[in-house]
């Protein structure tokens, strides 16, 4: 067997890790083994700094069919249907090449969902950039959006939502998180644990090229000043092949007795195969000469570690291989038999009959954990004094024009929102609604996180992100039943960032426990810092809300003039953390922690009232506060809203509460009854009008109004 010539620490392994590996193996490792180990033991693959911490997240729930550790979380939605969902980051590749970085991010998360046996049904994108208006940011934003559109539209999966925030801390480290949602019947659920000596691995999809080698290790290293040097590592996605891969995979899963399946992501073939083996407690023999290549001269380590896109690894009994290959061939896609299961737990890599390496799968799979050394204490800033008075009407217009509140229609308008016929409510407000099939159960889906909140308190910000995501699905009448998340942070080796990592996990755990929402999985992206500037902690939450009858979700029909406008829940009692405070130049402060009792009560009310058809439209009060939310209803419906508000204080009008909704109803009496029974504070504030304008009356202030066209001009900034 070839021996050791490289110093493994030059591959990014720490001396202590090398020692650990040698001890486990009982010998020196070969170059090939070090190469594989350096990738599989990278932060990106091994979660060295976060794995222990993540066990604090609640994961139990009666609807959870597959939780953390699976390719995607899977939740029961009734009538034999289930939903699979996962969010993942593709930050560093997108910083280097925004279009292809985002495109391959979409392709990558799609294959995670596919690996559960689900048909990918929708994407959401969560984007963070430095402040707009600089050439670099605009270029990144345009490229990323074009990349998502390119891959998503072409692969035939709609993009139905997302969020987008600008903050100076993302200037050098933009974030691109992608979420995929898929549907499956319960019996279609698949697992990635390999088993059965002699079963064969079938590599399905693209030929293996030199692209993306070392990508995983690359993602774990802080972006260098000149990221351009990392350029050859950029991969190009082929959504056309991605589409063939979906169809071929699903057809083989439907027709053949597939034992296990896994997508190829970070760590390439080695990553997928070793994970499958380690999960199943078995080993494998790999035949590298059978891997279809794009360039003839790939070295064994390159074949093992290449992160070429659009590939899946399936495990089948030998007798089923010919049929699976025939299916693949008919659909125009390559399928190669590249190895078989060994019972002894060893990974034996061979090329043309020659044994190149043999090492236990468990050694590769069990990276030593890295301890966190979080800074102590929570540096939440004190709550500052409130600005007083001011002209609410002009403040509203100014808020709507802020980059973080302006319209996202120009962005989601470039995404196919409908393909697949599952989109019942398109993007526009809060969550989108999907049905598993016409007439079948479905879900409301949203991704959320507000950098402004996390900037001053990672912990409160994280719990508020869970609350907002829950509110957004509840606005469609859905019950939040599970969440997936992506934790984007700076280097865990810095005590402050380690503290933030602990805080965001605790914040999510707190809110998830308080609201009874299990965490079904997620992804951690660390080292988002460069030039001494780290991002604001960014725990992106992807929420799944259950809708037994999505075709009757809140928001499927339109409100009618004359319907009443209600406030449900708890109005804001302070301005801290709000966009208004930022606009007013008040020193930033930590937002109020979530009001869980009030939120729980409304989260109970909306699904019940929605199912009874009592609510035509609901929208939660979030960024910008109450007046902004009212304006958004006027913008969204094309109708008018006329209200009389109880208070004229800035905190009431512009504070950002954690448990407040606006609801439009044709039957206020019924909603009031329900609210009383559930302990929801409710107030009727006005009505929907035919003429498209927002009319606002407040105590001691003259009545004022804004035409929809004026509101439109304010929000209508062209971001692309």
């Amino acid at each position, binding site marked *: 067997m070839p021996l050791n010539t490289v110093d493994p620490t030059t591959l990014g392994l720490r001396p202590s890790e090398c020692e650990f590996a040698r001890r486990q193996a009982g010998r020196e490792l070969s170059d090939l083994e070090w190469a594989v180990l350096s990738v599989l033991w990278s932060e990106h693959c091994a979660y060295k700094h976060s794995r222990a911490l993540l066990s604090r997240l609640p994961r139990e729930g009666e609807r959870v069919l597959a939780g953390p550790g699976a390719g995607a979380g899977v939740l029961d939605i009734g009538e034999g249907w289930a939903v699979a969902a996962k969010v993942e980051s593709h930050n560093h590749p997108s910083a280097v090449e925004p279009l292809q970085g985002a495109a391959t991010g979409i392709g990558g998360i799609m294959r995670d969902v596919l690996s559960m046996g689900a048909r990918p049904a929708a994407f959401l994108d969560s984007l963070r950039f430095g402040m707009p208006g600089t050439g670099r940011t605009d270029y990144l934003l345009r490229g990323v959006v074009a990349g998502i559109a390119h891959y998503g539209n*072409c692969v*035939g999966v709609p993009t139905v939502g997302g969020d987008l925030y600008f903050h100076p801390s993302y200037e050098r480290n933009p974030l691109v998180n992608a979420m995929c949602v898929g549907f499956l019947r319960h019996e279609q659920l698949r697992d990635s644990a390999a088993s059965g000596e002699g079963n064969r691995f079938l590599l399905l999809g693209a030929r293996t090229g030199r692209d993306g080698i070392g990508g995983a290790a690359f993602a774990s290293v802080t972006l260098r000043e000149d990221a351009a040097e990392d350029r050859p590592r950029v991969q190009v996605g082929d959504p*056309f092949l991605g*589409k063939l891969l979906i169809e071929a995979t699903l057809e083989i899963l439907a027709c053949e007795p597939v034992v296990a399946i896994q997508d190829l992501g970070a760590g390439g073939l080695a990553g997928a195969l070793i994970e499958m083996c380690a999960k199943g407690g078995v080993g494998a023999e790999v035949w590298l000469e059978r891997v279809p290549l794009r360039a003839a001269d790939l070295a064994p380590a390159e074949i093992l570690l290449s992160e070429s896109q659009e590939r899946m690894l399936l495990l089948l009994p030998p007798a089923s291989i010919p049929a699976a290959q025939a299916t693949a061939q*008919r659909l125009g896609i390559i399928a190669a038999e590249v190895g078989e299961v060994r019972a002894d737990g060893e990974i034996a890599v061979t090329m043309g009959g020659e044994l190149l390496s043999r090492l236990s799968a468990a050694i590769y799979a069990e990276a030593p954990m890295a301890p966190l050394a979080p800074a102590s204490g929570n540096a939440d800033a004190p709550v500052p004094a409130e600005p007083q008075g001011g002209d609410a009407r002009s403040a509203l217009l100014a808020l709507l024009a802020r980059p973080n509140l302006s319209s996202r229609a120009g962005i989601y308008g470039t*995404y196919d929102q409908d*393909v*697949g*016929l599952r989109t019942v409510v398109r993007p526009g407000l809060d969550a989108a609604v999907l049905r598993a099939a016409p007439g079948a159960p479905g879900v409301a889906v949203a991704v959320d996180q507000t950098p402004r909140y996390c900037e001053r308190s990672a912990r409160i910000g994280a719990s508020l992100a869970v609350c907002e995501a829950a509110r957004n699905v509840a606005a469609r009448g859905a019950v939040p039943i599970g969440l997936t998340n992506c934790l984007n942070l700076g280097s865990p080796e810095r005590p402050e960032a380690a503290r933030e990592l602990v805080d965001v996990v605790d914040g999510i755990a707190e809110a998830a426990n308080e609201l009874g929402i299990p965490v079904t999985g997620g992804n951690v992206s660390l080292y988002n810092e460069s030039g001494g500037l780290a991002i604001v902690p960014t725990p992106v939450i992807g929420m799944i809300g259950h809708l037994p009858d999505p075709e009757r979700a809140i928001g499927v029909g339109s409100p009618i003039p004359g319907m009443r406008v209600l406030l449900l829940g708890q109005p804001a009692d302070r301005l801290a953390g709000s966009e208004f405070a930022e606009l007013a130049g008040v020193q930033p402060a930590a937002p109020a922690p979530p009001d869980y009792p009030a939120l729980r009560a409304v989260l109970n009310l909306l699904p019940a009232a929605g199912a009874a058809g009592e609510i035509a439209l609901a929208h939660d009060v979030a960024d910008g506060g109450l007046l902004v939310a009212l304006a958004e209803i006027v913008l969204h419906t094309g109708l008018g809203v006329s209200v009389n508000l109880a208070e004229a204080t800035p905190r009431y009008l512009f504070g950002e509460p954690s448990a407040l909704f606006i609801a439009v109803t044709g039957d206020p009496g019924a909603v009031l009854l329900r609210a009383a029974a559930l302990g929801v504070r409710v107030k009727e504030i006005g009505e929907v009008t035919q003429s498209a304008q927002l009319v606002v009356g407040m105590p001691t202030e003259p009545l004022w109004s804004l035409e929809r066209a004026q509101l439109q001009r304010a929000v209508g900034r062209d971001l*692309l």
Partner: protein
Amino acid sequence: MIADVVVFPGSNCDFDTLEALRLALPGATLRRQWHGELDLSRSDLCVLPGGFAYGDYLRAGALAARSPALREVRRLIERGGLVLGICNGFQVLVEAGILPGAFQTNDVQHFLCRDVHVRVASSESPFLSGLREGAVLQLPIAHQEGNYRVTPREFEELSSEGRIALQYCGADGEIVPRENPNGSYHSIAGVLGAHGRVLGLMPHPERAAWPEIGRADGLEILRGALSVVAEGGRA
């Protein structure tokens, strides 16, 4: 009645179209046919669905238009069968020379997905026979290369032969540049083949065949095939 949906590698509205046809053509035999094995010898209606056939590489629809499947489609047309090209299907028919013109990238230079209004400019086609001229439909579009180009001469010809099927318009039916989403010549959203039995259109009727969620204006177009069968099948 037999209706076939052709699947090219990269088609992605094939299942959607079948699902909508199931509703629109009750009792019809629906088949999803892979392009390589296409047999339309018993077909009454063939639909080329939306998507990105062959990745839309080179030009949208160009590679699919040269595939052997198109021979079957041409034969069906010669026999008087019905052919409906939706979005990418329309692009394929144009690239194949079955319908005139050519497509360019939307004038805004990016993909567009939203509801538009279209006005029925001609009902001289089975597909449009259930609608009156001037009727306004609300249908979704989803395309990057939907900017339909014909020469002024071709336009005159198409107009005089009643072969402009649909034009983008406002909710009130007014055809104005502001309501033209992609820059198409004279707001053309759909055109007919010589005998009205071939229709190519950019909007997606199959995405608007769903009354239960308030999107149903595409049903009438999909039902059009019934009118021919009611008259006694193919010509």
